[in-house]
């Protein structure tokens, strides 16, 4: 799994951090997403998929 985030689309709702705090964080200046782990281990995949599903701004994509 490869994770991509689009900072311009991000609205800083923090949904992804709630789903997968090991993979996503938020930038101190403005709350925009920070990708901590672009290739997360398999045990995190379900949480990352939930983060994609609940992201209100469609700012997270997987490959």
């Amino acid at each position: 799994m490869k994770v991509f985030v689009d900072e311009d689309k991000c609205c800083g709702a923090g949904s992804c951090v709630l789903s997968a705090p090991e993979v996503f964080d938020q930038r101190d200046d403005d709350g925009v997403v920070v990708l901590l782990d672009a290739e997360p281990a398999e045990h995190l995949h379900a949480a990352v998929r939930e983060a994609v599903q609940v992201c209100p701004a469609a700012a997270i994509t997987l490959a």
Partner: protein
Amino acid sequence: MTSTMDPAGHSPAEVPEYPMPRAEGCPFDPPPALRELQEQARVTRVKLWDGTTPWLVTRHADQRAVLTDRRVSADMTHPTYPRQAAGGGGTLSFIGMDDPEHARLRRMVGPAFMVKRVEEMRPMVQAIVDDAIDAMLAGPNPTDLVEAFALPVPSLVICKLLDVPYGDHDFFQANSRTMINRNSTPDERTSASARLAEYLGALVARKLEKPGDDLLSRLGEKIKAGDLTVRQATEMAVLLLIAGHETTANMIALSTALLLRNPDQLAMLRESDDPALARSAVEEMLRYLNITHGGRRRVALEDLEVAGCPVKAGEGLVIPNDIANRDPEAFPDPDRLDITRSARHHVAFGFGVHQCLGQPLARLELEIVYRSLYRRVPNLALATDFEKVPFKHDGFVYGVYELPVSW
């Protein structure tokens, strides 16, 4: 489809009025007429208070698609924006704007509501909840849970965050109530909005002179840097103060009423030590009760299609999240309250770039309330007939006006 009929088969004279009344005796469920619309059509016309007939989007998946569509605008000053009511003034800051200005302003207050910043507030919120329970238990029994607990807790939290004096709570709670009551006249709503703006404007001015460690002082820094006007900062402060206390207060009281009617779910929550169950209960309560019942409002900027239905540029869109959260396509057996279900994909906070910025704080407050109140007050009970509980059928934010409880 003929040009005079909408997809649900209504001729122009038959277009149903929105919002619709809930069924007698079913205060926790969406209006039956709205559920019928959902079964009949994915997109259908409704008639608003001003006689306009925007499109209403009934399904969870289509609502999410509309709310993330960049051709759809949240600009409340657009001439055909489907307004909730007349009056109120202003745009309620970035809620009523489109990107890029929306994103620019929203990101100025974003850091205060980041998940990790909100998590740092946990001890403070826990102390506020514990103190409120102590005060309630030391006071008269029975009492009104709204006044004794549900309203003070989030009001105290948002006052701390903004450094608004809690002693002024009667003033800002009363004016907020007027602003979000459907039966307020346009004049009443506009003056309540002006009073709150005047009050918070004065507070912003004081923070400009004497900054502290609070959100309004950080907006003061943005004003000094030339990134924000005093008026913009004031509008943001009004938005944060109202959104910060009214919504969570209503969730606390309404979900307690719902749990008292569902003793098996209440017992499960009370008897569990698992913080994951409390967090899951928060999501299910948000899904089930979804207190912003007026429908998100948008206007199409271009011709587009919603679930195959052509929507013309300039036409309004109403997106009621309460019905999406009971959509069987998104939630199996949607009317069953089940605090163990996976409900994170609910749209109680809206969807798209306008999704509630304060949601991490709302979740934290609800989680702490759910883990504290029912354990500290294990024999909490309704102190009136359920039929006599006054529900806020006239509010833009749903809830109960009072909830008499005993223990």
